[in-house]
């Protein structure tokens, strides 16, 4: 298994990916998915993001927080 996004349709939200927050920069934070790939995610919809927190990101925008998930 490489990533949850394998072979799926990116338009649909099903392939949203859990990521760990690496750096917090206001509303655009650096996140890392479980294979170590880093990207920027917009965190407008998830308040008070903290480093090491796990977020659910789809299309570069985080919409899930306080997940019962570890990477």
């Amino acid at each position: 298994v490489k990533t949850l996004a394998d072979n799926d349709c990116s338009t649909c939200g099903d392939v949203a990916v859990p990521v760990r927050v690496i750096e917090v920069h206001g509303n655009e934070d650096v996140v890392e998915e479980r294979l170590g790939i880093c990207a920027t995610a917009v965190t407008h919809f998830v308040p008070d993001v903290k480093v090491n927190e796990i977020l659910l990101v789809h299309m570069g925008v985080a919409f899930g927080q306080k997940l019962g998930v570890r990477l």
Partner: protein
Amino acid sequence: MMMKYVDEFRDPELIRKTSEEIHRLVDPNYHYRFMEVCGGHTFSIFRFGLQNLLPENIELVHGPGCPVCVLPMGRMDDGLSIARHPDVIFTAFGDVMRVPGQEGTPLELRARGFDIRMIYSPLDALKIAIDHPEQQVVLFAIGFETTAPSTALTLIRARDLNLSNFSVFSNHVLILPAIRAILDSPDMHIDGLIGPGHVSAVIGARPYEFIAKNYGKPVVISGFEPLDLLQSILMLVKQMREGRSEVENQYNRVVPWEGNIPALRAMNEVFEVRPFFEWRGLGIISESALKLRPEFAQWDAEVRFQVKGVSIADPKATKCGDVLKGVLKPHQCKFFGKECTPEHPVGALMVSSEGACAAYYHHVYLRQAVSE
């Protein structure tokens, strides 16, 4: 490294036990029909061969939850008419690039020289607009409530930046009116629904309560891993066995009961519900899609480019609507695997990898063909 999100939900022993529990609890004299609403669930069911782990009297019906598949060809032609404007940079997600209009796909138009670019996020389109102030940048926006907040956020940023060369062609649709239309369909019989996972992370679980209350059908919101889906089916079976019809949340590690309030607020600020919208395979469904509010008219591509609103009927011989409503299985359409393939889709459900026909083609039909 054990990863709770994936590995534990693919544990063979847990999967075997859950499958056995389902077999133990079903009524052998009843034929169960459960609809998985979401295209991602359809994909997982075929990919992991989950139907093989279920009793023969549990039938999974593949629902309308693939936004690319339900997009009518007329909307694609409308979008591509914008892409043909000489000063336009037309942006779309990867899955949309191979959706055919009457005169080809976005990829084919790009090969003919039009400036059509694939993006990962709606915000990428905004960045292109900032970087190319001399051109009009149009975002072909599509998806259910999972993607609509991202488009809304992009439009709010465009407004805040007073960006005049950016606009959105909205094809966002809503899952609940589609479910209601299916439940109201006279030729439809469903015992329970496997509710979408990430749509529900935005809208929450509460909006599904009308299905349990008004239609008397159990709903279980599910994750996408094999054990998620089997556990959801087990929860549906248990509800029926106990005479209950409730909304339950199997995917509570991700889906909060109330959804994501800031995301819903952004959607409400930017979008309003269209009186009606055409769904490929399902026809016109009232109040089932989103358009930009008048306050955002200057960023509305339908207004800016005076889009005609083309309506094109689906090829009548294809049975997309019957497959979407679970009346037929994909391979029972006479076009399946012949004229209609993932490389050359005729019907809507063959377009995206999450369409029921494409998923069946890749994970059942091809495997059978190879083994024969």
